[in-house]
């Protein structure tokens, strides 16, 4: 890939362990699975949310409802980046979001703008009792006052570097990689 350097930050076992711990933290903070619903942000937050739901089910014997959210239409930069021609599916978790404890699941937290958009979109659907933010990688670089409640791993990435979460359903493996473009080191 045009001389870009990929550095492995987390392998499959690291990611699996992190997701298991995040699942436990979610349940602990929520004091059980009651009223808990997960919402994965398109695209890779969706697969991570499903894996966290699996972990919760394994530990608690009860699977929280899982939904998906595509925040493309809520982005604040349509005119600068242009629309994506193919939107992902937005589907609320069974039971809706009113009065529920919603956990937003995303792969990487960077500027915070995706989360801002997700909060706006959720507000258009209803009024959750509370919303938590859960991300696999917090890479810093926030442009908004947003902070994850539950984090898999905090990484200090430079502006020109990219953190990529890979999931088997899309990328063929479960891992986290740090990508440094050629000539920026």
């Amino acid at each position, binding site marked *: 890939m045009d001389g870009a350097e990929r550095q492995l930050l987390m392998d499959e076992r690291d990611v699996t362990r992190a997701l298991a711990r995040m699942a436990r933290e979610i349940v602990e903070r929520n004091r059980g699975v009651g009223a808990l619903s997960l919402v994965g942000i398109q*695209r890779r937050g969706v697969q991570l949310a499903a894996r966290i739901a699996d972990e919760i089910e394994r530990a608690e014997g009860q699977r929280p409802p899982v939904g998906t959210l*595509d925040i*493309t*239409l*809520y*982005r604040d*930069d*349509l*005119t600068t*980046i*242009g*629309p*994506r*021609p*193919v*939107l*992902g*599916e*937005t*589907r609320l978790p069974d039971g809706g979001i009113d009065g529920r404890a919603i956990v937003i699941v*995303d792969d*990487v*937290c*960077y*500027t915070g*703008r*995706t*989360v801002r958009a997700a909060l*706006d*979109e959720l507000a*258009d*659907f*209803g009024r959750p009792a509370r919303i938590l933010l859960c991300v696999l990688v917090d890479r810093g670089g926030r442009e908004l006052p947003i902070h994850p409640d539950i984090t898999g791993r905090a990484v200090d990435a430079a502006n020109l570097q*990219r953190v*990529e979460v890979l999931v088997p359903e899309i990328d063929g493996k479960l891992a986290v990689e740090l990508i440094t473009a050629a000539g920026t080191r």
Partner: protein
Amino acid sequence: MPATPFLGKDLVGLAPLDGTQIRAILDTAEQFKEISERAIKKVPVLRGKTIVNLFFEASTRTRISFEFAEKRLSADTVNITSSGSSVQKGETLVDTARNLEAMRIDMVVIRHPSSGAASFLADRIPSNVVNAGDGRHEHPTQALLDLLTIRDHLGRIEGVKVCIIGDILHSRVARSNLWGLMRLGAEVAVCGPHTLLPAAIEELGVTVFPHIEDAIAWADALNVLRLQLERMHAGFVPSLREYNRVFGVTRERVERAARDLVILHPGPMNRGVEIDSDVADGPHSVILDQVTNGVAVRMAVLYLLAGGVPERAEAAKHEG
């Protein structure tokens, strides 16, 4: 360097689009359907954009459908019809548009009785122009919603046999459907009185059925066009009753079909002329699904025209 927008600046017709672009519109529309099912039927994606609906010809469905699409994307909209505007005082199309431009608009949706009006306007103003029907030329969003409805019901468009029935000669709906269906690999046929078929239409690779029974036996989907009664004084068909007897889509004919048919009609219907009420309200009819899909398709078109740089959008996935 300005990037090339995904659909270009305007949507004047389906003829200039390729299969990838048409498929992308349908896939985008697929995701927009869900917004109209929400309790709050609104997303902020076109917030702050001003859209003018410039309708120089009567329309209920198309105009309202565009207006719903615009409002559900949070755009600000203004409707202008030829009656009650300066058009009646003799203002030209370009002058009307330039005056609107001077008030800083972003998009124009235009319906006009003259073929080519949409592209004429698109070449002269910097706003995005969407053709909502121009003369006998094209009605691209109607064809897109027909394609989406066929795909919903038959699962695909490639290889599907679609027969367009009726007044092909005067029909912009037929023309846009022909382009769209052929781009996506459907088999296309037409059926209608010889006086209402364009000369040498076979050269486009379209089958012509002189008898409606043969068309129904062949087709997976029928798109039944409105007989444009306002043009019938020119003697294209002897009488409405005769038209119904020879070309009408009647229950008896549909029941004799070899397989389950999907029956479309762009509206407004002349019940008892090109289509019988039994069929229009029957199990094969998807006419109201077309209307529902119309809003989603128009949302997709407006959304893709508003920004339209998929290559750069790709990079946005890694922000966040």
